[in-house]
């Protein structure tokens, strides 16, 4: 499903955060939003996920977000927030089952189809051995997989990932991102993510969007966005950009 954002403006507590953002993510594409702290990356993702009031338009596969009922929206767009809440005492299976909420009647209980969907996701993410473990007993990397599993159980074709790897060491970062990429190819998912690590962002995304002060400063293939000039201007950092196998390698250097 194509995500189309035009003229997106968001104000939080009266402070304007986004000043008219335009953005398109084609069906099956992976777009990552980069930008310095406070640029509005998370706010952009939350608005696209329908979690914030905004002006402008966000359409998912041609349907305006505001026209979708919450449950209908949750079947199309799944969000993994930056630091998901870990409910104390909840088993992994029950947590992933929460992802089926948009399919279960508000006061009803899950159907056999919901359980099949959950077990299917657990198997594909190698989480079956953890199904009855309590979420808080899992390591950071395992947890991130469970968070992804819940989002996938939603059966949505648009996946929003806010800093999906910020809590992980580089080994687990790679593992999670490879997993997302595999799921994207297998399921035709459309991925919109935010990320701090510029090299990693460029290696996995088809296109990057550089956000600065609530505006799109640059957008395009990683090699076009990750340039020494653009990064120096918007991050106030001295970097060396070296061509790599899967995209530019961004190395900070001392002046």
């Amino acid at each position: 499903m194509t995500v189309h954002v035009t003229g997106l403006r968001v104000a939080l507590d009266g402070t304007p955060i986004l000043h008219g953002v335009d953005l398109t993510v084609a069906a099956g594409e992976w777009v990552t939003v980069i930008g310095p702290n406070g640029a509005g990356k998370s706010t952009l993702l939350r608005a696209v996920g329908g979690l914030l009031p905004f002006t402008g338009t966000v359409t998912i596969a041609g349907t305006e977000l505001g026209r979708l009922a919450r449950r209908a929206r949750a079947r199309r767009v799944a969000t993994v927030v930056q630091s998901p809440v870990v409910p104390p005492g909840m088993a992994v299976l029950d947590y992933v089952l929460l992802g089926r909420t948009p399919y279960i009647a508000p006061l009803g209980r899950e159907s056999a189809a919901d359980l099949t969907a959950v077990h299917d996701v657990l198997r594909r993410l190698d989480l079956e051995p953890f199904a009855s473990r309590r979420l808080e007993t899992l390591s950071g990397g395992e947890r991130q997989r469970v968070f992804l599993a819940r989002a996938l159980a939603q059966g949505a074709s648009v996946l929003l990932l806010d800093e999906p790897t910020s809590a992980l060491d580089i080994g687990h970062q790679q593992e999670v991102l490879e997993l997302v990429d595999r799921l994207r190819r297998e399921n035709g998912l459309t991925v919109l993510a935010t990320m701090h690590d510029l090299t990693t962002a460029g290696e996995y995304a088809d296109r990057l969007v550089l956000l600065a002060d609530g505006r799109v400063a640059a957008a395009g293939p990683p090699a076009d966005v990750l340039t020494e000039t653009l990064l120096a201007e918007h991050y106030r950092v001295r970097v060396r950009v070296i061509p790599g196998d899967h995209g530019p390698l961004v190395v900070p250097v001392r002046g």
Partner: protein
Amino acid sequence: MTLGPAARPARLRPLWLVAGAVAVVAAALAGLAFGPVTLPPGSVAAELLNLLPGVRIDSGLTEREVAIITELRLPRVVLGLIVGGMLALAGTAYQGVFRNPLADPHLLGVASGAGLGVTAVIAGRVAAGDATTNLPVGVPVAAFVGAVGAVGLTYLLGVAGGRGRSPATLILAGVAVSAFLDAAQTYLMQRHVDSLREVYSWLLGRLATAGWHDVRMVLPYAVVTAAVVLAHRRVLDVLGVGDAEATALGLHPQRARLVLLAAASLGTAAAVSVSGLIGFVGIIVPHTLRMLAGASHRVLLPLSVLFGGAFLTLTDLVARTVATPAEIPIGVVTAFLGAPFFVLVLRSMGGRTT
């Protein structure tokens, strides 16, 4: 597809339901059998079965003993089951809604609000010269108004007010609201000294021996509360991931929270209006169950009703037998048990309070 027994979602297992039912029956039998006159539990069970239509068993009890069971003790036991079930259910619901293990009808100020409402009605009635011992039917309504007002105030002060919210913030707000409402209540009592005695005996918490009147008064509210809260058991689990994520999952968290708060406050108000201020049931029962049966509300809520009722019935038995012929107010017994328990919960929370 083969699934291990552990790889199933949290649901109320039959074994737990049976355990809850056994606890209720055992507590009820104990409550009916023991007292100033001790009756054999087997005969008590026979008399209970005799209450069913078409059953006729000879229990070997005299007519007077049967009257003790059916007219004195049974209403009290049934009231204990309802009030205990309501307080534990409300405690579990508040803890889920606020995602706060310390939330409890009393610590949130709900009980004080309900108490103020009831005091106003009692004072007004004594002032008007009505000397009947039964509580007026309007009492639960007044209690509900007070309860909802109090929980609203606590919520505003403790959650909406500050950004750096922690479990303790909400409870501190509840303490402030309770103190204010208790002061208002004391003021009201001072202004109506003639009603002091009646209010005071009610205040300490008691399961009235006023026959079936109180049971009939509280039952409709209890049924509504239980139906609404139990219907939301899965929703409460979704609320556990916080508002933002619950919204992303297609839920209306604010709407669900409002419905649950209203229902839990109605149950608390009904319980308080007949039994006074009985504290800590909403902490002790849910926490013990959480340790034994797991954290899912799909399991916790129904078990809270059963074990809460059994717990309060047994506590009442202690309250009326430990110092015979005198009765200790039941609220004193639950506080003796609950205060140390509260400290345990605080300690188990570790760093989360700061």
